[in-house]
């Protein structure tokens, strides 16, 4: 009933507006202002463009400055700092044409508004100007491309040989994490072996898989390169960790990777931000279904010693699930192993330099 009343009121309001509009037209016909002339409204619009330039520019500058800290969450990886510099440098570069073009656009709109008796300047082309404003942007672009290309090849290049290796697997709707265990080799996994217990699909016939362990959160050591191998077992996901400037899709059937070097431990960052609950997070950044927005995993950056201790304390998946291991031994000659993927490349001991 109230909805009906509201609807009725809205309809009546619209009718009133319609009538007012009609009335305005009729009066303007009677008063003789209904013919199209380039008069008041033209200069009003011209002035409004100038007002828009000044007020809009001030508002933008103010709100940008006010929100600057909020849009710059802390960064905690080596390449992240370099990217940050490049980002704000590029922003600075594009700010120049942004400001200049807008000043010209709105100022010209104001300055060259229609005046009776004046005629526009017939100026159809000038090749010299065209060449200038083709070449200058081309040079600027070339330098941006060069800087971007250098950083890109460095970031996406092969991880250092001593990188800590771990694997994240995306599933609807959370992340699974595994480490290679004592042998420093990630074992074979096979999606056909996945079930409620064996979420990763470990093929325990593979020796390298026997000591792999899974973890409820990602631990990485500060100051060491970390190579994250990335898989998905159902749909596309993306490992996205804004604090580390890390992003890579998780693609079913096609393992991907991303490496980075964390620079600040979780504890250091908590102290720095004065926020005891701070955590580095991984978000899923490729639409994956109903729970996409809640697909989260924490990353803990430890001091290297703590990391070594944490690593040593973990128990392998096989030892925690003896029944799974037993069932593998029973059907040791199953077809499964034939379908197994080739062994994942070997990784050296994590922190070989540290664990004396």
């Amino acid at each position, binding site marked *: 009933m109230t909805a009906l009343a509201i609807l009725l009121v809205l309809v009546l309001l619209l009718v009133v507006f319609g009538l007012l509009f009609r009335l305005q037209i009729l009066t303007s016909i009677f008063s003789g202002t209904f013919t199209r002339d380039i008069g008041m409204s033209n200069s009003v619009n011209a002035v409004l463009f100038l007002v828009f330039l000044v007020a809009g520019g001030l508002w933008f500058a103010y709100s940008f400055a006010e929100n600057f800290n909020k849009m710059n969450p802390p960064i905690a990886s080596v390449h992240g700092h370099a990217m940050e510099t490049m980002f704000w440098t*590029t922003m600075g570069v594009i700010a120049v044409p942004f400001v200049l073009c807008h000043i010209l*656009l709105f100022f010209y*709109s104001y300055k060259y508004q229609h005046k009776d008796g004046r*005629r526009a300047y017939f100026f159809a082309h*000038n090749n010299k100007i065209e060449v200038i404003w083709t070449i200058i942007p081309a040079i600027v672009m070339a330098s941006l491309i060069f800087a971007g290309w250098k950083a890109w090849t460095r970031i996406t290049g092969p991880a250092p040989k001593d990188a800590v290796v771990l694997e994240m697997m995306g599933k*609807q709707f959370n992340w699974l994490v595994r480490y290679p265990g004592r042998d420093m080799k990630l074992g074979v996994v096979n999606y056909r072996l996945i079930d409620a217990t064996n979420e990763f*699909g470990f093929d325990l016939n593979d020796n390298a898989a026997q000591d792999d362990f899974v973890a409820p959160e990602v631990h990485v050591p500060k100051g060491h390169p970390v190579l994250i191998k990335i898989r998905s077992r159902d749909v596309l996901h993306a490992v996205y960790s804004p604090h580390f400037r890390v992003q890579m899709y998780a693609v079913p059937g096609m393992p991907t990777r991303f490496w980075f070097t964390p620079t600040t431990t979780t504890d250091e960052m908590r102290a720095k931000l004065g926020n005891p609950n701070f955590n580095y997070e991984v978000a899923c950044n490729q639409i994956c279904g109903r729970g996409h927005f809640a697909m989260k995993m924490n990353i803990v950056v430890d001091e290297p010693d703590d990391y070594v201790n944490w690593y040593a304390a973990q128990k392998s998946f096989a030892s925690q699930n003896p029944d799974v291991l037993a069932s593998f031994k029973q059907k040791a000659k199953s077809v499964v192993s034939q379908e197994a993927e080739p062994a994942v490349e070997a990784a050296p001991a994590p922190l070989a330099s540290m664990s004396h």
Partner: protein
Amino acid sequence: MAVDIHSDAQEQAQAQGGRGTLVPSTEHGDHLHHGEHEHDHEHHDQHWLWKYVFSQDHKVIAKQFLITGMFWAILGGTLSSLFRLQLGWPEATLEWLTPVLGKWISAGKLDPEFYLALVTMHGTIMVFFVLTAGLSGTFSNFLIPLQVGARDMASGFMNMLSYWFFFLSSVVMFISLFLETGPAAAGWTIYPPLSALPQAISGSGMGMTMWLVSMALFIVSQLLGGVNYVTTVINLRTRGMSMSKLPLTIWAFFLTAILGILSFPVLFSAALLLIFDRSFGTSFFLSDIYIAGQALSNQGGSPVLFQHLFWFLGHPEVYIVIMPAMGMVSEILATNARKPIFGYRAMIGSLIGISLLSFVVWAHHMFVTGMNPFLGSVFMFLTLIIAVPSGVKVFNWLATLWRGNIRFTAAMLFAVGFVSLFISGGLTGIILGNATLDIQMHNTYFVVAHFHLVMGSSAFFGLFAGVYHWFPKMFGRMMDEKLGYIHFWLTFLGVYLVFMPMHYVGIAGFPRRYYAWTGFDAFSQFADMNKFISIAAILAFFAQFIFIFNFFYSIFRGRRATQNPWNSTTLEWTAPIEPGHGNWPGEIPTVYRWPYDYSKPGAEADFIPQHIPYSQTQSSNLPYEKEQED
């Protein structure tokens, strides 16, 4: 009086034997060559069904595209208001929407899957149904024959089919909104496996099937239209209308149609392969999948392959959306600044450059999908180069305004707004096209802000500018200017208030397609800003009803138009105020000059239309033009 002119003109046309005036082979077109006894039946001999519904007249088809596009725009805008409600007020109850949304509201909350359906359908509707069909469908249809001087499209019948395939596609897509399992919900890019597996999300059931069927029909419509546009521009130009005398609108529509013809079939193939994967057990895009407690047998497919196919269309698609707007804006800026467009040839060159480059930049959407980083370097290089022709266009537009004598019609306001939005949105493309920076920015609100400014809002501004400018030609009446001003200023402010702050949210790393960010520390800092954006978005959306009102009111009760209300130079304004089928009652005018002779020194008026020979304008002819005085 009108009839007399008409008959004279027809006799002339007959006397001339239709020289250079191709008449569409329709019943109606042929009629133009019938004897003078029949000429007064011109407006009476067709059943309304053939005249207004299954019409082969390009002008009627254009209006059909426009009005269907407007319907979709309102729907697409409504969907965005719904999800902005969720993003602005994640805690608020939406119980009051239950009468409309039914089971998609549970316990006062929007269903997260329905949220994804909303963003998916918003994107699909706006990109394809509004800004491709509604923009290019309307103005390519309306302006190509009128501005090149043709009686109609090369094939009126195919043109009619083009609309009706679009209509069919619209019906299928519209019905999918009401499915039990919901419409498609995998994002407008419909990446498999999410879009391939109903187990993954309920929208990938019947909703996705209908999305794919609808899109297949849509592509047929686009190809029928595109082939027509290209053929018409190449073959049906009137005498004297060389390619170098075409208005920039036509150049833009022409290149847009070529892009569409070359890229839409690739989307068709992607859709077809996806249909195979979904229904016939193939594995083009699927491999190694365990879902809903089951390991699927699909092996060897690649989801990344789909992305290559999709973006091979998807990137040219954004230029399909923006180039018609660029063309119309060039035309409107020149007309209302009373100045020739600056650098006509550079404008054509940059359009051609953008068209060519648009085919070799698609993988910049895929820097972090795991494709070979070397490929990333190549695509970064090609992508950032596209900034150069885009920059040339902006500088030329600015130079066109310089020392003009600017009249601010509603169309002109939107054209200036277009340039502003194109600058603001285009520049951030330099960030996103840089593979290194894209690692952080990919799929964040920075991307959302970027493309909404540079292709979404800009193209909408181009559409509005076009409607305000060519409304008199379409309906023989004028739109209300004051309402147009109000519409412009509210929209212009609204768009900036929505999308500038959205950049901040994106720089902070907020992911797109998130139902809520409340679960993350990293994305907790902008709750107020999201509320602000939502308010601005919903207000800007409501401002569009001013336009809707103005549009429909003016069709019936607007001020009657004069033949050339903007004192423009192009051919469409030489046709009668409300041209019949065939456009010009008599012979089609011959073209002598380029379309931008505004404020020429020595000329009497501040414009010389294209059909005025140099012999009549001896006082203003430039040295090289003197040779062409007959």
